Each structure stands twice: as structure tokens, then as C-alpha cells.
């Protein structure tokens, strides 16, 4: 890949002069903390949320640990009428969206009529709900399938329910690109801001911790079979042997910098760069996504202060990511971290939780740690941050890969 073929036409450079998009609200549900500040404090303490599975009886399966969000009481977050018609993924999403909107300090009802929208990433929709209805169908017959099935399980459910709950009637969307989807969703929300939307709720929260989802993960054969939760997901470690599945993620309130300034909003940071690529045959293109995202942000590699890695936790994929980072920043050329080692990989929610971590790292000027991995393997020449590191931070790069060949990269910048 030559630099020339990656150069974008003039329209691309023009986009930089367009409206900036800033994050003014954050909501989080993570295995190691429910709510933004609880999760961030646990993350800086290096507390893992990976534990034995409790949401179903996992005794018959070769993998029995996961990152579950604990302490979430449905009734505290949802009106009772919504409970029969929502999967856990939607309950978590509604709670996290409310936290983000409360946090941003503005009332969506005060927006112009079509001024607010929702773009979320999804991976499998309301999969546990779907398993229940499939069981009803197969064991009892079609007439036993719930009247809510038609909209409780599908991929658009979280965007739809968030839009309804908060009266957000502007342009909305849903993207699915496996684990890369979170960044793609935020980028799509940024497009709506550039077209004139005042406020977008965006990001991704995911959950498919049911036996049916578990069977799908086991079929993909990328999970760690380690039984010790502290040694199961070891990104960039010579002993890496797969990942752990978790649930949760983050949602954000994205606004134009002009709108945020006008109302004197507290701003966590700006979403300044983004790109997505797809792997070619034998050609991983994660590094190209990173380069294009930097170009979109108008930054040089040396201006990036921290990288939140995709951190597959599998040897070949870890090596490929380390090589891409070394090619861009030089060997051990930039601090790299993977706090997802404390949560597991969260499907569509994972990259969003990394964006939340990047924004809070910029706010607090501290890089959260990677846990489990004591030092990276020799073939992964990374400056891997394994204890919280206080350092001046201006720009963070977040990387994400989705199964099948999806790559996305985003740049978050202090304002």
C-alpha cells in the first residue's frame, strides 16, 4: 500500500473545516462498573469484571467465564410496561442512554423538532429474547411466539427505543460491523451533526449472554478456554489463547462544537478523526484505517499520545496489530493500552467503551492499564501500559476490528 493510493481527494480535506463534533455526555454499563464514574474508578484500580457465568447454567460448556454487568436492577431503570417487551440489551441501552443524556446537561425536549437523533451499533439484537421465542416456536408452535418478538429482537431495537423514550425525531441509524461497529456508529452520528443535527445519542451497548449466543461464540472458536478469570484474556501476551466475551458498552451525547459552546456545555473531548477499511486477501488493513483516521484529524503520528488497541487476545491477530502500530509509530513508539482486558470483548459495545476510556483519559490525563498481561510478547514490540500512567494527553487513537475483515479507527482529542 503506497501513501499515494491512500490520499483522499480534496473533498476529504474539506471535511476538516466542517463542523466539529464534541462529546458532552457519557453513559456506561460495564462488567467492572455500572455508571461512568464507577466503571472509570474500577478501571484505574485495575479491577476486572470477568467472573464465572451466572446468567445461565454454563456447566455443560467448555468456556464458563464472562464479563457480566452486575448490579443492574431492571425496575430501577425501566417503566414496568417495557419489561415484557425488551431484551436485556435494550434495558441496558436505555439505562446507559439516560445516563448520557442526564450527563450532558441539556433536555432533549428543548431541541428543535427534528434536532436530535440516535445512531447505535448492534451485533445480534435482543438475542436472549430471540432464544426464548425460538424455544416457544420449536417446542410449542408458532402461535406461542410473543407479540413483541417482531421488534424486541431485531438489530434496530435499541435505536428505536431510545428515540421513543427521549422524543428524538431526527435522522437515526443502526450499523452492524461486529466489534468495529461502535466506531462506525459514532462516525455516522458525526455525519448527522455535520448535516445540521443539534444532538445525537450514539455508541453501542451489547449483550448476548444466553446459551444460544454462547453456542455462536463457541462455534467461532476464538474464546479462551482458560478457567482462571485473571489469566483468560491476555492481549499481546506470549501466552494469549483467545478472548473472553462480555456485555455492556457506552453511549454518548455528540453535539456540534458550536452548539456545545453556545450553551456553555462541559465537553469531554472532540471526535476529530475516523476511517474504516476492509481487509484484502492476505492484506490486513487496520494500519491503513489508523493512517486515514489520523489524516482525517489532520494529525501526524507523533501527535498521538495513547492508543486503545483492538487487542484480540490471539497470537496472530495481536502480532498483526502490533506490527501495524510499529509501522505507524515505530517500535514501542506510543503508549498502548487495552482496558478491555478487564471486561472482555463486548461485541458492538467494546469500541465504545474504549472511546469512553479515551475521553476520560484525556480529562484526567492518565492512561488506564491493561491487566493480566505483564509484558507483551517479543513479537509485539509495544509500550504496553500495565499500570495507570499519568502523562500529558492531547490525542487518543482507538482501534477496532470486526470478524470477517472490518477495521475502524477513531481519534479523540482534548479541547
Amino acid at each position, binding site marked *: 500500500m503506497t501513501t499515494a493510493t491512500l490520499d483522499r481527494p480534496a*473533498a476529504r480535506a474539506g471535511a476538516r473545516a466542517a463542523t466539529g463534533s464534541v462529546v458532552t455526555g457519557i453513559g456506561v454499563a460495564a462488567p467492572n462498573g455500572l455508571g461512568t464514574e464507577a466503571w472509570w474508578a474500577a478501571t484505574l484500580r485495575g479491577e476486572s469484571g470477568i467472573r464465572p457465568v451466572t446468567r445461565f447454567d454454563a456447566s455443560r460448556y467448555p468456556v464458563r467465564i464472562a464479563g457480566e454487568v452486575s448490579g443492574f436492577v431492571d425496575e430501577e431503570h425501566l417503566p414496568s410496561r417495557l419489561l415484557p417487551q425488551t431484551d436485556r440489551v435494550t434495558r441496558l441501552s436505555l439505562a446507559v442512554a439516560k445516563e448520557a443524556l442526564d450527563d450532558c446537561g441539556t433536555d432533549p425536549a428543548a431541541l428543535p423538532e427534528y434536532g436530535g437523533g*440516535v445512531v447505535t451499533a448492534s451485533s445480534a439484537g435482543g438475542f436472549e429474547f430471540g432464544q426464548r421465542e425460538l424455544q416457544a416456536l420449536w417446542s410449542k408452535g408458532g402461535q406461542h411466539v410473543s407479540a413483541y418478538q417482531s421488534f424486541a429482537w431485531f438489530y*434496530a431495537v435499541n435505536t*428505536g427505543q431510545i428515540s421513543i423514550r427521549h422524543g428524538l425525531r431526527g435522522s437515526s441509524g443502526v450499523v452492524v*460491523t461486529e466489534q468495529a461497529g461502535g466506531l462506525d456508529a459514532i462516525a455516522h452520528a458525526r455525519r448527522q451533526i455535520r448535516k445540521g443535527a443539534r444532538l445525537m445519542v450514539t455508541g453501542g451497548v451489547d449483550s448476548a449472554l444466553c446459551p444460544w449466543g454462547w453456542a455462536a461464540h463457541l462455534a467461532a472458536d476464538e474464546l479462551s478456554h482458560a478457567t482462571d478469570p485473571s489469566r483468560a484474556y491476555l492481549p499481546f501476551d506470549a501466552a494469549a489463547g483467545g478472548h473472553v466475551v462480555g456485555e455492556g458498552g457506552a453511549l454518548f451525547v455528540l453535539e456540534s462544537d458550536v452548539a456545545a459552546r453556545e450553551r456553555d456545555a462541559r465537553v469531554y473531548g472532540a471526535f476529530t478523526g475516523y476511517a474504516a477499511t476492509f481487509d484484502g486477501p492476505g492484506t490486513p488493513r487496520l494500519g491503513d484505517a489508523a493512517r486515514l483516521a489520523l489524516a482525517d484529524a489532520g494529525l501526524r503520528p507523533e501527535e498521538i499520545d495513547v492508543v486503545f488497541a483492538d487487542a484480540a487476545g490471539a497470537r496472530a491477530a495481536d502480532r498483526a496489530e502490533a506490527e501495524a502500530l510499529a509501522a505507524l509509530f515505530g517500535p514501542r513508539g506510543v503508549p498502548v493500552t487495552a482496558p478491555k482486558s478487564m471486561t472482555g470483548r463486548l461485541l458492538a459495545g467494546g469500541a465504545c467503551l474504549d472511546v469512553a476510556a479515551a475521553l476520560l483519559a484525556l480529562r484526567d490525563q492518565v492512561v488506564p492499564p491493561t491487566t493480566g498481561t505483564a509484558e507483551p510478547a517479543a513479537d509485539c514490540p509495544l509500550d504496553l501500559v500495565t499500570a495507570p500512567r499519568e502523562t500529558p494527553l492531547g490525542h487518543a487513537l482507538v482501534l477496532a476490528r470486526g470478524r470477517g475483515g472490518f477495521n475502524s479507527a477513531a481519534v479523540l482529542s482534548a479541547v
Partner: protein
Amino acid sequence: MRRVVITGIGVVAPGGVGTRAFWDTLTAGRTATRGITLFDASTFRSRIAAEADFDPAAHGFGPAEAARLDRAAQFALVSAREAVEDSGLTGALEPVRTGVTLGSAVGCTTGLDNEYGVVSENGSTWEVDHTRAVAHLFDYFVPSSMAAEVARAVGAQGPVSLVSTGCTSGIDSVCHAVDLIREGSADVMVSGATEAPISPITVACFDAIKATSPRNDDPETASRPFDRSRNGFVLGEGSAVLVLEEFEHARRRGAHVYAEIAGFAGRSNAYHMTGLKSDGAEMAEAIRAALDEARLDATAVDYVNAHGSGTKQNDRHETAAFKRSLGEHAYRVPVSSIKSMIGHSLGAIGSLEVAASALAIEHDTVPPTANLHEADPACDLDYTPLTAREQRTNTVLSVGSGFGGFQSAIVLTRPRLQEAA
């Protein structure tokens, strides 16, 4: 702003595989709805669907590939291949400047339904037996696998994604691709949507809310949008994929251009996951915003390709939306629903309708609404009953409405480069 044009079309639809068969079906006013043959539907309330006659082997899928790929993925691959060949870009796509967007509302639902039966031993256990699962189960679980299949098949290495906004996925996927070309992230997008939802779980979930037509004694005329006797939509399946190209890129190579995508917009009703308010306000606003982006007055619209699902609430909602957004012109412009012929293929139908809209411009012909003999008194527009209409067609508005409250509108225009030529 970079302009975006359609230079290739590929279709798998009920009534025939391929763009030509699709257009023939539509302009003949022929219905492709019938009793369900894809599974034994005898215990269901609605036993009708518009099925595609699709033989995987005839399209080059070997037995292993046909088993691995969900039917929806196969549709997408076949229509993508036709679209790229039609565009003349076969072997000439620059990988890093080419992307894919694929819309789908319910993903690999047929594959999931079948595999669930296996791992659960017909629903007998909650803790399903993972050892019985096929190796590709994860690809059914997360449907971006289908966009990845198309990207690999056409050699795309730019932005690739699946767009899943329920029944507006097909329009929204195309609009997403237009965004990517306009902003400079790609020069060519292979973009469309696919759906193969005719499986027991999907039929059951629409049975449960009585959204689908139970006219089992007369399946050929069951899809009756705007007609007084309509009683629900008829489930369909299929795929349409377009090659979208930056205008100068198309012009430089002398490509045939079907239409330009001049504007689009989406709005949400924030009202109910399945219900619609009768005033059509949000769809009207999406239409107005799409026309604004296209810099066109409502009176420029020569044809409205309606959502026209054939449910009472949709047809009234939509009729109100056309009146709100187009004013008096709503009573003059021909409107039609191709769902009357090929059913409602959920996430795919929006792309099939964009394809039909482009072909309406190409052939100066408005496809009809089949089975429309006596309009609902609340539906008092010109819905182009029964027979296709030849007329100069420069500008087409196509709209969609979906569960989740999504309302989408897209405006296609006759390409100016052809007029200049």
C-alpha cells in the same frame, strides 16, 4: 459537493432473478405472491409469501457454499455480481476506493431458525448443545458477515458495513453509501440490501401482531396496497444491489448512468415501535428534507414510489404524508406500490424500490399497483392501479417506513450528463 450516480443494478426478486425479469414483472403488473413453499406453513395464520425462485446451484454455489451461506447472503452475492457486471467495472474496481453497504432488517434469520432447532433438539432444552452447532453459526449470529461476503466477492477494501434500520434498511443502506462517496471515503460503493425472512419464526412473529394478510384462499391477489379490501402485508424476499459511483468517476469512463441520487433524508416518529400516527408528519418532514437537499420543488416529482405495504395504518399514514409534503401536487403525481407484486421483503424492499425507481427513469415508465380495484376512501390519490403507465419520468421520490419509527425518503433524478449528451 461530490455527486453520486447509479451505474449498475442487480436484482434477485420474486418473479425472476435478474434486473430484466424484475422490470418485466413490475411493468406487466404480475403478482409473484403464492402459498408458502419454503417450509410447511400449514399451522400459521398467514401462509402466503412472495418467494424468489432461486436455485443456488444455477448461480454457481456448490453444496458446501450453499449450506454455509444464508439464503439472504446468496441473494446479495448474486445481485452484487450482476450489478458490478452491469456497471462495466468488473476487474476495474480500485479496492481501497471501493466500499460496500448492505441493508438487512433481520439478517440471517432463516439460518438461525434452522440451526436453533438442531442445537436445542427442537426446543427441548434452554442450555443448547453447542457441539451440534455448525462452524459458521457465528456468521448467522452477527449479520455483518453478509456485507463481508459481498466485499470479498467484489474486491472492496474501503468502508464496509451492514445497515439495519428495520424496513427502511434498504433505502438507508443506499443513502449511507451516498454519504461515503460524497465525503470522499470511497469513489464506488456496491450498495443495496438483502432479506430472506420466509422462515417459521418470522412468519410467526408477524402472525402474532396480525400484520400479514391471512388471505390464504387467494394468495395471488393477497397484496392489495391502498385497496379497500386490503388486510395486511405479504411477506417477500429478495435483494437489490446497486453500483453507486462518484459522478466524475462515471463520466470519465463513459459509464451508462441510470439515475442520480439527488437527495435523501430520514426522520423518526419517536412514537411507537410498530405503530404509526395517522398524520404522517415525520415521513412528510423526511420528504421535504430530501427534496430540499435535491433542490427540487414538490412539483418536480414525476412519480412517487410508495412504501405501500398494504396495512391500513401504513396506507393512511403515507397518504397523509404525501399530502403534507407535496401539497396539491400529491393529487396529480402517480403513486404506486411494487409490494403489490413482489411483497414486502422487510430490509431488502427499500433497495428493490430504489432499483425500480431508477428503472422508471431509465424506461420512462411508472410501474402499477396491482390488485387495486377499489381504493380505500381514505386513500384518495392516484395509485396507478393495475397497469403500468408510460410517461416522461425525470424525478422519482421513493419512501420507506419501518418498525422502530424510521421514516426515509430518497429522490432520484434523470442524470444531467445524459441530457447534455
